[in-house]
């Protein structure tokens, strides 16, 4: 915040007063005389919240609900002369301001807010507004849109900002917590697990000043750190591994995104890079690669865009797309900017300066983004691919050399041209936009017969991609123009006049996708060949193609020779679409949840000659105008050109004739082909993820009232938020606009990005954000309790290269973090919610921490990292369509919760009971509830029961420990502290009573599993186990 230095202290004191008022006010009834008004009333901290809550719905940014042509969110408008005379706000004079007159009106009909709303302004609120007007009615931009700044020279540390506010409010801070509590606290915050007894011991015994610092560094370096913080992040991006809706389809490779996050947090990937990879990991010129496997790491981040709910068989694909994109906008704007951009879908934002056009600028960007099955090739696989490539190159050059041999030293071998003219005048495809021309307007219609309308979507007969988008290694960025066809190892001919995925070899993954076009004819033909591959028509970016209505727009390619694949698209006329040729097909024979997973075999390939849209009859391409015949072809030159992959169609035809007529020998290349096949067989399984790739830039007009059937006049150019990028300049228009969006977010001048993220970190470290509404920094969000601290951390974050670990380290090393949970009596009275952090807040462990701690304590925890999720354990109460065939293990294989499967329609009851959010939107802050289901889980759930037995088994065999020693061990492991004499006495009494009740021989009791399980079960149910102090 930019404030002149002398005001700083006053401001902080004032904010403190604001905070304290909570306590005071909760004691007095509504309508009591206002007390303790701030000396200087601040628009952002005192006035905007009142106006936003009570006035802006009718007198705010949204023009569609504006009443009386009055808006109070802009000073100019609020202070302008009204048509009926007077001014709503007269700066300097509350008395003369109509606003005050209306708020205070005796007459209920005149009083604002109107009687029919339930809002009433309190006496204090009215007094605040009056004083603010009297003091000049100074407006300010929303606090969160002012760039973070600190007065120069102010001491800089977390404690400084916290203590200043405590001092200003006359509150003392709590003493530091004891070492046991501190170790437990730091361990759960950083790793989500209790400290191991060994770690605890090292820390307790380390009496040097740096002991705690060493502990924090140790925990930051632990691989468990990434698992913990990845899970926090997964709450933001509504992480799930299935699509929900009717059949809960599995999302291909979703878990690899989870692994990406764990690696990113463990290696402390700078946050600006993390953001950039999320939005544009597929567009980076120099992506990062997986440290071991070597596949493209950056692209995996874009999976987050694809992890939303997915509709089974929508009748209206356009509406479905609008909902899908809305979810992406919602998640993206909340996660990275703490803004509720989705509120501007139907109208200008009612509280924040976000016009609807901002929403549709983003809409267009995501409408241009295609979900894509994306192969991840390891560096080993890439190396084999490279060797295939060079083997192919040497094959060609040896063939060329051999073919040129007999001609060596002789006159060049001339030959009249074969009649090769194969292709009509090419028709290029115009990208779809909302004003896309139809086929007729494009003039792409056969003139011979006007009833037979048709249009070329892709013409590959001269071997180029005709503007289609290659993706993956099967279709390199430059097309290969021919294939060598062999018979019994001997060259038979060149195949050309098509695009093919098997230039290197069959089985190479990849896809070729058309530009986006408007479906304006009834049918599409794709002439294609291949094996184990698919052709799909992707309508309105809809991917989950299924019966009953969508089966006509997906075909499995199974034909050695080019065949016609026909797609009926009548149902979707007027929609936008693109065609996708993809190596690999879908697992249709599998359990229904798996039918959208991709199945690629070593022999899968696809090739295509052309794709055409038509109404009634497909055009006969043989009757199309031909290219002019070539005159004479020099076969020697043709061979050279072919070896360099630059041969024209005529040259390749000439080579074929030469081979067939015996001029060129049918060389035996069997051994070279075997070599290539040998390389290919080394490639093995290819991993896929659902990520994104760029299509054509599509600009969307505003949907009036959010309805796509009533479009605004003009497409909105792709650009960033107008309130942040001052001039709202459109992006460059090149096809990498997600990258530009990412840059606008990580630009140091963006006032939100760093603040939002450090606030998230603070939230997890202290249980509550400096801005409590972690996902909403707008007018309806909470105000920061410590604005300068927030700015300090934000600036520090950027200064230190966006290092998450560095900021967390600073937070954890502060005294503020290390304080005990016990408030002073004054703090308890004056700041009961502990907003000023005089002591460390007590909080319940979150769902994952509870489950993981149980496993860690019982000894069952398997710290294996990464990999396919452990299938969900299904109880008899978890039913419905898409139920997996088999249940996963009760104990989840002992793996941490982050590795347990998240199926949208089969969410873990234990996780739900302990408030893990349902994955549909961004949840930076979880609810913390207190439901019987939680106690019942801890008391009676089979998982808890099982783990008490596992734990008891371990304790039973500790023969060198007596009962008291075992109780000590149990306390150290589960509660991170030694048992007090009372704890031990109680434990002994319980165990003894049980021994007697069950009439056990006291000696045998020591080895009785039931006895120890009963005791361990109690420990799991202690509040000290479930809460963090």
């Amino acid at each position, binding site marked *: 915040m930019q404030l002149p230095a002398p005001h700083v202290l006053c401001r902080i004191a004032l904010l403190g007063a604001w905070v304290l008022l909570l306590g005071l006010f909760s004691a007095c009834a509504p309508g009591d005389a206002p007390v303790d008004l701030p000396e200087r009333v601040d628009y952002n901290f005192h006035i905007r919240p009142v106006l936003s809550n009570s006035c802006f719905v009718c007198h705010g940014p949204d023009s569609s609900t504006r009443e009386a042509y009055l808006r109070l969110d802009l000073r100019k408008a609020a202070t302008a002369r009204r048509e009926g005379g007077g001014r709503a706000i007269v700066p300097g004079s509350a008395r003369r301001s109509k606003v005050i007159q209306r708020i205070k009106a005796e007459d209920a009909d005149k009083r604002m807010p109107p009687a029919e709303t339930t809002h009433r302004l309190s006496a204090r609120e009215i007094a605040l507004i009056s004083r603010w007007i009297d003091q000049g009615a100074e407006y300010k931009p929303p606090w969160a849109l002012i760039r973070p700044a600190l007065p120069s020279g102010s001491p800089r540390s977390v404690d400084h900002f916290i203590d200043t506010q405590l001092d200003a409010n006359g509150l003392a801070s709590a003493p530091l917590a004891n070492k046991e509590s501190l170790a437990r606290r730091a361990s759960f915050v950083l790793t989500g697990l209790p400290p191991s007894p060994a770690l605890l011991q090292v820390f307790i015994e380390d009496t040097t000043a740096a002991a705690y610092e060493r502990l924090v560094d140790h925990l930051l370096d632990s691989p468990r750190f990434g698992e913990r913080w990845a899970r926090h992040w997964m709450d933001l991006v509504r992480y799930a591994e299935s699509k929900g809706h009717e059949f809960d389809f599995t999302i291909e490779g979703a878990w690899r995104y989870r692994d990406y996050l764990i690696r990113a947090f463990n290696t402390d990937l700078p946050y600006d890079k993390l953001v950039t990879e999320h939005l544009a990991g597929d567009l980076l010129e120099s992506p990062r690669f997986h440290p071991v496997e070597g596949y493209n790491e950056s692209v995996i981040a874009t999976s987050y865009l694809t992890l939303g709910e997915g509709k089974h068989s929508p009748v209206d694909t356009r509406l479905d797309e609008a909902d899908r994109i809305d979810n992406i906008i919602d998640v993206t704007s909340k996660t990275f900017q703490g803004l509720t951009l989705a509120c501007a879908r139907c109208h200008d934002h009612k509280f924040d300066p976000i016009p609807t056009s901002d929403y549709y600028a983003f809409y267009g960007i995501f409408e241009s983004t295609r979900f894509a099955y994306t192969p991840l090739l390891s560096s080993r696989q890439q190396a084999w691919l490279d060797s295939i490539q060079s083997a192919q190159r040497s094959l060609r050059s040896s063939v060329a050399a051999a073919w040129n041999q007999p001609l060596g030293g002789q006159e060049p071998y001339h030959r009249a041209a074969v009649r090769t003219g194969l292709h009509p005048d090419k028709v290029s495809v115009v990208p779809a936009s909302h004003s896309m021309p139809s086929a007729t307007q494009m003039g792409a219609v056969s003139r011979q017969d006007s009833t037979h309308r048709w249009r070329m979507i892709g013409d590959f007969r001269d071997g180029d991609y005709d503007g289609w988008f290659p993706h993956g290694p099967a279709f390199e960025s430059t097309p290969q123009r021919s294939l060598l066809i062999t018979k019994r190892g001997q060259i038979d001919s060149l195949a050309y006049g098509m695009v093919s995925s098997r230039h290197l070899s069959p089985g190479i993954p990849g896809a070729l996708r058309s530009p986006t076009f408007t479906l304006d004819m009834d049918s599409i033909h794709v002439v294609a060949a291949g094996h184990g591959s698919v052709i799909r028509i992707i309508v309105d970016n809809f991917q989950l193609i299924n019966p009953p209505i969508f089966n006509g727009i997906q075909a499995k390619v199974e034909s050695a020779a080019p065949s016609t694949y026909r797609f009926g698209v009548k149902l979707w006329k007027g929609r936008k679409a693109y065609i996708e040729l993809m190596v690999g097909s879908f697992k249709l024979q599998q359990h229904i949840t798996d039918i959208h997973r991709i199945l690629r075999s070593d022999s899968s390939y696809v090739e295509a000659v052309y794709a055409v849209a038509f109404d009634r009859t497909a055009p006969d391409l043989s009757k199309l105008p031909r290219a002019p015949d070539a005159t004479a072809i020099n076969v020697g030159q043709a061979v050279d050109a072919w070896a360099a992959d630059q041969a024209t169609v005529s040259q390749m035809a000439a080579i074929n004739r030469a081979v067939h007529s015996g001029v060129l020998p049918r060389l035996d290349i069997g051994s070279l082909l075997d070599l290539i096949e040998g390389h290919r067989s080394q490639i093995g399984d290819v991993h896929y993820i659902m990520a994104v790739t760029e299509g054509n830039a599509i600009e969307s007009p505003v949907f009036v009232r959010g309805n796509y059937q009533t479009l605004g006049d003009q497409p909105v150019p792709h650009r960033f938020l107008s309130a942040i990028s001052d001039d709202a300049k459109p992006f460059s228009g090149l096809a990498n606009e997600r990258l530009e969006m990412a840059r606008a977010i990580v630009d140091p001048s963006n006032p939100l990005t760093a603040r939002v993220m450090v606030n998230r970190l603070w939230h997890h470290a202290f249980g509550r954000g400096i801005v409590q509404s972690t996902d909403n920094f707008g007018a309806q969000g909470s105000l920061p309790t410590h604005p300068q601290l927030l700015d300090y951390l934000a600036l520090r974050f950027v200064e230190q290269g966006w290092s998450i670990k560095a900021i967390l380290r600073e937070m954890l090393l502060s005294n503020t973090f290390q304080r005990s949970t016990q408030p002073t009596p004054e703090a308890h009275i004056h700041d009961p919610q502990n907003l000023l952090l005089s002591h460390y807040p007590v909080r319940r462990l979150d769902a994952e921490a509870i489950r993981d701690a149980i496993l860690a304590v019982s000894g069952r925890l398997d710290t294996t990292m990464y990999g396919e999720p452990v299938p969900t354990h299904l109880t008899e109460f978890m*039913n419905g369509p898409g139920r997996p065939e088999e249940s996963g293990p009760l104990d989840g294989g002992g793996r941490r919760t982050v590795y347990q499967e998240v199926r949208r329609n089969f969410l873990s009851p234990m996780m739900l009971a302990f408030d893990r959010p349902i994955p549909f939107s961004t949840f930076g802050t979880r609810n*913390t509830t207190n439901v019987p289901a939680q106690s019942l889980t801890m008391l009676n759930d089979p998982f808890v029961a099982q783990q008490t037995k596992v734990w008891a088994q371990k304790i039973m065999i500790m023969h060198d420990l007596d009962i008291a020693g075992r109780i000590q061990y149990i306390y150290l492991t589960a509660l991170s502290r030694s048992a007090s004499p009372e704890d031990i006495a109680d434990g002994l009494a319980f165990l003894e009573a049980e021994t007697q009740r069950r009439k056990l021989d006291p000696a045998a009791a020591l080895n009785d599993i039931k006895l120890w399980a009963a005791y361990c079960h109690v420990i799991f149910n202690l509040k000290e186990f479930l809460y963090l102090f």
Partner: protein
Amino acid sequence: MTRREMLSLCRNGFGSIALMGLMGTTPFGRVLRQLSSPPGPTPLLPRVPHQVPKARSVIFLYMDGGVSQVDSFDPKPRLAKEHGQDPHDKFKVDATQFDDVGTIMQSPWQFRHYGESGIEVSDLFPHVGACADDLAIIRSMVADFPEHTNANYFLHTGVGIQGRPSMGAWVTYGLGSENQNLPGYVVLDGGLIPSGGLDNFNSGFLPASYQASIFGTGDRPLANVEPLEDSSDIQRRKIALMKQADQRLLGRVGHVEEVESTIANYELAFRMQASVPELTDLTRETEATKRLYGMDSSDPHTRGYATQCLLARRLVERGVRFVELTCPRVETPRWDQHANLKEGHERNAHAVDQPIAGLLKDLKARGLFEETLVIWAGEFGRTPFAQGIDGRDHNPSAFSIWLAGAGIRGGTIYGATDEYGYRAVENITTIHDLHATMLHLLGIEHDRLTYRFSGRDIRLTDVKGNIIESVLD
């Protein structure tokens, strides 16, 4: 709960805050409402509604898959006259889920007039038909979605996407429950969880306290209510040991409200272990009562649904706020007859008809009818023309539902469809209207029951919803 605890709650706890939210006063201003962390010790404590309620509880009979209106509660003689003709010649046909539009198809069932009201009900529902004078039938329902999952979310949560609070969650959030030893919102799973899964019954962004508890049909009705221990004595001892340690903890760390709430919560959980088995123990019901519901039926699905209906009565009898019944898994599951309408609808109807009528009669006999709102509804209707030869496709443009019980004017027909039963044309009624009416009967003003999420005060009825006055007494 002791009187002292109750008083302390009302003074400081969530109860009072939520109540003030409900009453529309915000004495603490906006700041406290946001900063207060809602869950107090017992979020399900009953709360005072906005106005005098007619209904104390709701029983929602969910008809999974979409019952055909023209074969149940909305007779259309014209379909018989034009049977076999092309619907495209008659009216504009919307896109359908299966895109397999056949010819106009008459209902395979006869309709009969029932009771003093003379309301026509088809032979699918002879038992319910006999209760026609108690029903307010709405023939002009429309849904926003032709797909099951979205329509289910819409019906249950007022929004067609995943993750929103279910109406049962909203109701318990608004009113709490009158029995602290049972969950406030119960789903009796008859065998079919609707498309969209358990999220139809979740609390969305509301605190988890308000999510449904799912009761199964198996031996263990509810997860985790059966004590692990072989004797309740040992569980008591364990809890005693736990309490000792918890008390010592409080001694060390001082007053921490959340921890104290959790301790109190264990008491509730402990009591639920006893109250759930008591609830599901039907041995004290008379044979006559069981027969009334059809528990002696030769159809196992009728017997199953009869048990669920009887449990529903026992739940509302004990003050549970919101009970939903899902459908039994008959041989042709759900009302979703894309083919073979006759057999499928008949099986589904046979399973639920007598139990529902039994429930209505039993509620009346026990004086519960006047304080219980019974809602019978599916997520959408079906087409008056065939899908293929003998099925009907989804139709969101018209369907029939009925209400009965508290505050409902029985023997009423409200709204109408066109001559084919294809589209609602008169008094078109939305799911939001249904929700507004339900909340109204519970004493809640639907536009004042809000929860702040994503920067907005969100309602079950979005920004819509009108009370359907004509069906009210």
